[in-house]
């Protein structure tokens, strides 16, 4: 028995083992949904027993055995419910030896799970919840806490997500290389959403909330190990690291937002920046440039500037122009407009924004007004800028954003 003086290493160990155990059990019983519940119960059992009794010699084997026992119990009680007379027969069934289950394990199990949890039939919030539990090894309580909803609601969301997967009839196997290419964008998007949910959380609430940004980085790192030749996974990991590097500088002592050009760059995490740039450089050498690599490249240009004034805006503008071709969308156009304004002046940026006014995906979104206000301020039209800062403040659903935008309007109103 190994010693574990505190919970942190235990949690890490369990989270690493969770998808392996789930893969083994799902493969054995051909039932992903039930296996996922059984593994969650085994994890909770480990959480309570291991700190008291010590970590078993073969922790993965222990979890597999406990989960398999739960599965067998469940099957027996199902049989008993259906036909009480067959209970005796079911009792005589023997458990498959652990060695046999472990021999069947496949290093790709985690990858299979990741593709399964990001199934296109799922809504983003259910895919996120299921990925965090099945692949991330988080407990339902931790996920519920991260999204500030009751545990029962999160449990229900996860159970519905599994039902959707079951109904879709997705088999427990690795998608073919062609299927993987088709499904990978959905997987990357889910990982990205987990990251942005965690990264954007304010510092105060992060103290109580599970660190989703770190979790997203861990999951993406694992995905990169499993698909080492995929440049977009590397690009996404680089994007996460290059963005996460600025976390400490992004909010002030009162949790107020500090925009990129006002951040104390000495607070940026150099190690994360170096790793991100290294990953990105290697990914770009692959040749096929995708949306995450481009966004990572833009983040890298920002990160490489020692001061905001040294930012290489022409390069950022060129990258946004590429991004607009690779992955057109209103948010890309918005950011492109900012870059264009930095290079060619605010009038050029405002001209680009006008193309979004009739786009229903973004027309009522606070970011359009916020960017417009920012560019109007640069043209010197303070009255119009104030108006749009205030419209943006009314439209955002974030308290720190609203405070920031109202402060911008107030600052101009004083002049």
């Amino acid at each position, binding site marked *: 028995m190994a010693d574990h003086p505190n919970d942190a290493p235990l949690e890490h160990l369990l989270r690493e083992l969770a998808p392996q155990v789930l893969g083994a059990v799902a493969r054995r019983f051909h039932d992903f949904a039930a296996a996922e519940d059984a593994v969650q119960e085994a994890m909770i059992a480990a959480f309570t027993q291991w700190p008291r009794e010590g970590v078993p010699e073969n922790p993965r084997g222990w979890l597999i055995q406990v989960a398999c026992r739960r599965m067998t119990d469940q099957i027996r009680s199902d049989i008993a419910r259906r036909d009480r007379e067959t209970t005796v027969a079911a009792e005589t069934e023997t458990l498959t030896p652990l060695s046999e289950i472990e021999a069947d394990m496949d290093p790709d199990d985690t990858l299979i799970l990741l593709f399964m949890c990001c199934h296109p039939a799922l809504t983003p919030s259910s895919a996120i919840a299921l990925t965090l539990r099945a692949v991330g090894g988080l407990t339902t309580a931790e996920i519920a806490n991260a999204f500030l909803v009751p545990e029962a609601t999160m449990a229900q969301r996860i159970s519905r997500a599994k039902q959707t997967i079951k109904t879709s009839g997705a088999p427990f196997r690795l998608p073919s290389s062609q299927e993987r290419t088709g499904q990978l964008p959905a997987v990357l998007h889910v990982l990205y959403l987990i990251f942005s949910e965690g990264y*954007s959380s304010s510092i105060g609430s992060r103290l109580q909330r599970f660190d989703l940004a770190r979790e997203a980085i861990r999951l993406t790192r694992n995905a990169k190990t499993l698909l080492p030749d995929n440049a977009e996974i590397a690009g996404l990991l680089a994007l996460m690291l290059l963005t996460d590097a600025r976390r400490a500088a992004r909010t002030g002592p009162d949790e107020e*937002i500090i925009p990129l050009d006002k951040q104390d760059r000495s607070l940026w995490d150099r190690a994360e920046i170096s790793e991100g740039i290294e990953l990105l450089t290697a990914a770009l050498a692959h040749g096929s440039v995708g949306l995450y690599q481009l966004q990572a490249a833009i983040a890298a240009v920002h990160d490489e500037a020692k001061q905001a004034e040294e930012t290489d805006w022409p390069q950022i503008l060129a990258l946004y122009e590429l991004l607009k071709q690779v992955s057109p969308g209103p*948010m890309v156009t918005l950011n492109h407009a900012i870059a264009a304004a930095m290079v060619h002046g605010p009038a050029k940026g405002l001209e680009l924004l006008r193309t979004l006014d009739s786009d229903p995906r973004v027309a009522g979104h606070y970011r359009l007004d916020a960017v417009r206000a920012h560019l109007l301020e640069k043209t010197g039209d303070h009255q119009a800028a104030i108006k749009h800062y205030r419209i943006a403040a009314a439209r955002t659903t974030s308290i*720190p*954003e609203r405070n920031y935008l109202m402060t911008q309007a107030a600052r101009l109103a004083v002049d």
Partner: protein
Amino acid sequence: MKYILMMNGKKSDFEGYARWSKEALQANVAFMRTFSKELKDAGVFVSTEGLGWPSEAKVVRAGKDGEPITDGVFPESKEFLAGYWIIDVESPDQAYKIAARASQAPGAGGKAANMPIEVRPVLCGHADLGL
């Protein structure tokens, strides 16, 4: 994204509610119970509370030394919050659909009252990444 669905009413609405028939009350309670269960089963439920009636409402202001000064006289036109649900959904449209369902709660006559439900976003503590 989280939304709050609010049921509001004037003092007279609450007084009328107190005089509903047994059947209308039962139909309303049964509906509310089912509605709550629907929210939970759909995995969107965050919280719900019902509030005391306007007769128990007080408006409190701080006096000179910070002591509470209460007032319970309200104009008839004032709307009072009767109760609310907070839900966590994928889109505003999903919130509106759920609000429309709440609006179908049976009223005094035992039939769908189509009462107005005020829907507003619940603000979150984080800013978006802007990517």
